[in-house]
C-alpha cells in the first residue's frame, strides 16, 4: 500500500517540477523570444504561407473571436459529415459502421469543444480515419483554440491601453508546433515502447490458452493517446479509455499520462507570471488552485483505499481497496488520484470507471467540474478562473470601499455583468439539464422512444440520479468523463448534452476575452497606496471564498440528493 501513496506523491511533485520550467518556456514562445524549438519556424512559415495568413497582423478582441468562431465552425461541419459517412471512408479495416446523426452531432460538438464525451466506443463506432483525421485532429486544434483564447487575455493584461492583441492564427499554430506536438511526440514514443499499439493493422484473432477465441482491437493508438492527455482532451482510442491495457499498459505509462493531464494546465499559470512579469500573482493563483485540488484528492483517495463498506460486510478482505471498475496495475490510490486530476482539468480521460467509485469520490469529481477552474482545461481553465478573479476584485472593492481595479484597470458594471452571467451560466445549464432529465425519467418512463427513459440508468436511486447529474456536469465543464453506466447513445442524451457542451464551451471563452478586450481599452491607472493588491495571500483567500460560495450554494442541494445521500445509505 505504501508504494501506492509514494506513487501518487511522485506524480504530483514531478508534474509541478516540470510545469515551472515549461511555463517559463511558454511565456518565451509567446513573447517571441528565442527558444530551443526555433527550428520549427520554417514549418510555421510554410503553414502561414499555404494558408495566406500574415501572422504579424495584430487583431483586436472582436477580430480574434471572429477568427476563432469561424474556424471552429468549419471543424464542426467537417467532423459531423466525416462521422456520418465514416463507414464508407478509407482506413476502416474493422468495417465499422457510420454514426447515426444524433451520435455524430454529439461527437462532433464534443470533440470540437475539447470535451470528448464519448457516447460511442472507439472499437466499434469509429474508424482509423475518423480517429486520426477527425478526432485526433480536433484534440490538437481544440486545445490550441483554448490556449489562443487565453493568450488574448494575457496580452490584454500585459499592455497599457491597446487594441492590438496579437494574431489568432499565430497563437493557434504556435500552440501546436511549439507545445502540443513536441510534448505529444515524446509521450507517444514512451507509450509505444511500453506496449501501446502504433500500427495501422486491424483486429487480430487469437485462440487463448484455455481455448477461447478472442478478437483483439488495435490500431495506431499511441499518437492519439498522447495528445488526448497533453491537450486535456480525454477522448481515448478505446472505449474504456486509459483503463484499457493497450491505452495505459503499466505504471510507467500511468505516471506519464497522469503527469500529462495536469502539465500544461499548471504550466500556463506559471506562464502568466513570466509573461506579465507578475510571478507573485501566478503563485497566488497556483496556491488557490492547489488548495482546491488537494481538498478533493484526500477524501477521494481515502475513500477508494478504504474500500466499499458493503463489500467489507460480506466478510472478505479488501487489501486493494475498492476494486470494482479498477485495474490491478494501478490500484485504488492511483485510480482515485487520476479521477481528481482528470476532473479538475477538463481532461476527462479515466483509468478506472468513475461510476463504480465510492460516493465521496463521485462528489469530489463532480465538485471539480462544477468549479471547473482548479487548474482547469488548457487555456480555458485560466479563463474560468479569470471570471472568478474579476468577481473577487469587485466584491473586495466594495467591501473595503475602494474602486475595484485589476491590473491597473477599473472594473465597472459592464464587465461585472458579463462575469456574473458567465459564472451563473455554468450552474444553470448543469442543473436545468439534470432537472429536465429527471422530469422526463419520472413522468415519461415508458414513452415510445428507441431507448425508453426507464432504461437510461444502470443503477437505482441516489446513484442513478448521480449518473445524470454527472453527465451534465461533465458536459458543461467540457470534461468528457462519464458515469459510463448511463445509456447515453440515444437522441435525448446526445442532443441535450451536445447543446450543453456547446454553450459550456463558447460562452466561457467569449466572456473573458470580451472582458479582457474591454479592460485593455480603458485608461491605465498606475498602482498607488489606494490600490487593492491582488497578488497577496489575502486576495487568494478572497478568490477561494468566491469560488467556494458560488459553487457550494449552486450545487449543494443537487449533491445532497446524489452522492451525499448514497454515502450515508451504504452499510
Amino acid at each position, binding site marked *: 500500500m505504501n*508504494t*501506492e501513496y509514494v*506513487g501518487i506523491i*511522485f506524480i504530483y511533485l514531478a508534474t509541478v517540477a516540470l510545469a515551472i520550467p515549461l511555463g517559463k518556456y511558454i511565456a518565451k514562445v509567446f513573447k517571441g523570444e528565442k527558444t530551443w524549438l526555433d527550428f520549427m519556424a520554417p514549418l510555421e512559415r*510554410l*503553414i502561414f504561407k*499555404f*494558408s495566406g495568413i500574415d501572422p504579424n497582423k495584430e487583431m483586436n478582441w472582436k477580430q480574434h473571436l*471572429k477568427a476563432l468562431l*469561424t*474556424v471552429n465552425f468549419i*471543424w464542426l461541419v467537417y467532423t459531423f459529415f466525416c462521422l456520418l459517412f465514416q463507414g464508407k471512408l478509407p482506413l476502416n479495416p474493422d468495417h465499422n459502421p457510420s454514426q447515426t446523426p444524433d451520435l455524430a452531432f454529439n461527437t462532433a460538438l464534443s470533440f470540437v469543444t475539447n470535451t470528448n464525451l464519448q457516447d460511442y466506443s472507439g*472499437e*466499434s463506432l469509429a474508424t482509423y480515419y475518423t480517429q486520426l483525421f477527425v478526432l*485526433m485532429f480536433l484534440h490538437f*486544434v481544440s486545445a490550441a483554440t483554448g490556449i489562443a483564447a487565453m493568450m488574448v487575455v494575457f496580452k490584454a493584461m500585459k499592455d497599457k491601453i491597446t487594441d492590438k492583441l496579437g494574431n489568432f492564427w499565430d497563437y*493557434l499554430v504556435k500552440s*501546436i508546433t511549439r507545445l502540443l506536438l513536441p510534448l505529444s511526440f515524446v509521450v507517444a*514514443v514512451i507509450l*509505444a515502447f511500453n506496449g501501446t499499439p*502504433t500500427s495501422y493493422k486491424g483486429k487480430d484473432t*487469437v485462440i487463448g*490458452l*484455455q481455448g*477461447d477465441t*478472442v478478437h*483483439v*482491437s*488495435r490500431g495506431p493508438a499511441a*499518437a492519439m493517446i498522447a495528445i488526448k492527455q497533453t491537450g486535456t482532451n480525454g477522448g481515448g482510442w*478505446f*472505449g474504456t479509455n486509459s483503463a*484499457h*491495457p*493497450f491505452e495505459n*499498459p503499466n*505504471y*510507467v505509462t*500511468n*505516471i506519464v499520462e497522469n503527469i500529462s493531464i495536469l502539465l500544461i494546465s499548471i504550466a500556463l499559470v506559471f506562464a502568466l507570471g513570466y509573461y506579465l512579469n507578475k510571478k507573485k500573482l501566478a503563485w497566488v493563483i497556483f496556491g488557490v488552485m492547489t488548495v482546491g485540488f488537494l481538498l478533493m484528492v484526500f477524501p477521494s483517495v481515502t475513500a477508494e483505499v478504504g474500500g466499499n463498506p458493503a*463489500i467489507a460486510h460480506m*466478510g*472478505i*478482505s479488501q*487489501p*486493494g481497496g*475498492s476494486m*470494482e*471498475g479498477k*485495474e*490491478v*496495475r494501478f490500484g485504488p490510490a492511483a*485510480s482515485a488520484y487520476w479521477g481528481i486530476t482528470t476532473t479538475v482539468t477538463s481532461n476527462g480521460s479515466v483509468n*478506472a*470507471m468513475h461510476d*463504480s467509485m465510492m460516493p465521496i469520490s463521485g462528489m469530489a469529481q463532480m465538485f471539480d467540474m462544477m468549479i471547473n477552474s482548479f487548474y482547469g482545461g488548457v487555456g480555458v481553465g485560466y479563463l474560468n478562473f479569470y471570471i472568478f478573479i474579476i468577481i473577487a476584485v469587485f466584491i473586495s472593492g466594495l467591501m473595503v470601499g475602494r474602486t475595484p481595479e485589476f491590473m491597473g484597470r477599473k472594473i465597472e458594471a459592464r464587465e461585472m455583468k458579463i462575469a456574473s452571467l458567465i459564472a451563473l451560466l455554468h450552474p444553470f445549464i448543469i442543473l436545468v439539464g439534470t432537472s429536465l432529465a429527471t422530469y422526463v425519467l419520472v413522468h415519461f418512463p415508458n414513452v415510445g422512444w428507441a431507448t425508453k427513459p426507464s432504461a437510461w440508468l*444502470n*443503477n437505482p436511486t441516489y446513484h442513478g440520479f448521480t449518473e445524470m447529474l454527472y453527465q451534465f456536469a461533465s458536459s458543461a465543464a467540457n470534461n468528457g468523463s462519464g458515469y*459510463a453506466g448511463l445509456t447515453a447513445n440515444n437522441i435525448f442524451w446526445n442532443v441535450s448534452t451536445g447543446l450543453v457542451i456547446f454553450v459550456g464551451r463558447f460562452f466561457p471563452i467569449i466572456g473573458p476575452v470580451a472582458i479582457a478586450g474591454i479592460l485593455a481599452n480603458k485608461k491605465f491607472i498606475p498602482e498607488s497606496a489606494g490600490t487593492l493588491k491582488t497578488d497577496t495571500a489575502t486576495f487568494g483567500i478572497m478568490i477561494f471564498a468566491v469560488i467556494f460560495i458560488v459553487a457550494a450554494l449552486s450545487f449543494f442541494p443537487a449533491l445532497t440528493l446524489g452522492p451525499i445521500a*448514497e454515502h450515508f445509505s451504504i452499510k
Partner: protein
Amino acid sequence: MKTYLLPSLKISIILLVLLSGLYPLVIAGIGKFTPGHGEGETVEYKGRVVGYANIGQKFTKDQYFWSRPSAANYQADAGAGSNKGPSNPDYLKDVSARIDTFLKHNPDVKREEIPAELVTASGSGLDPDLSPAGANVQIPRIAKIRNISAAQVAKLINDNTEQPLFGLFGPPRVNVLKLNVALDELKK
C-alpha cells in the same frame, strides 16, 4: 466573414496533413522498433500465439489461475466495466454469488482470505493482472488439481511477480496469462 473563411479552410487542410497524416506515421515508424513492433506484444506457448501480454483473457478452469471477473467477458474488441455503483443491491448480490462460487471451487480458503479483486470486475474488462494476494489465495486449488507442491506454485507466482516500479511506485502485480503459461510449461 470572408476574411476568416478562406484562411480557416486552408489552415485546416495543412494542419490535417501535418497532425493526422505525418505525426502518427512517424510514431508508427518508431513503433516498429518496440518489443511488440507496434502491434501489441504477444505470448507464445509451444510455438503458438496464445494471446497478448497486455490483454487479459478468461480463465475459469480449475487447473488455471482465474483472472478477475469481467463485465465484458474478456472480449478484447468490446472491453467494458460493469459501471455498477457501490450501493447497487443487484450488484452486491452478484459479488456475493461470486464469493460463494469461489469458496465452492476453493474449499481450503477461508472467506476472509478472499481479496476483493477476485470478486469485482475490472474497469477495462480486460485486466491482465492479479495482485500477489489474488494469485496466492488460489495456490491450494492449483496444487491439488495439478498434483504439485504448494511451494512449487508459490515459487512460480513469485517468479512472475512484477514488483513496484523501482521498488517505489505503484502496486505489485502478476500477469495471469504469463503465469498460466509458466504453469503449463511446468507440466512437461
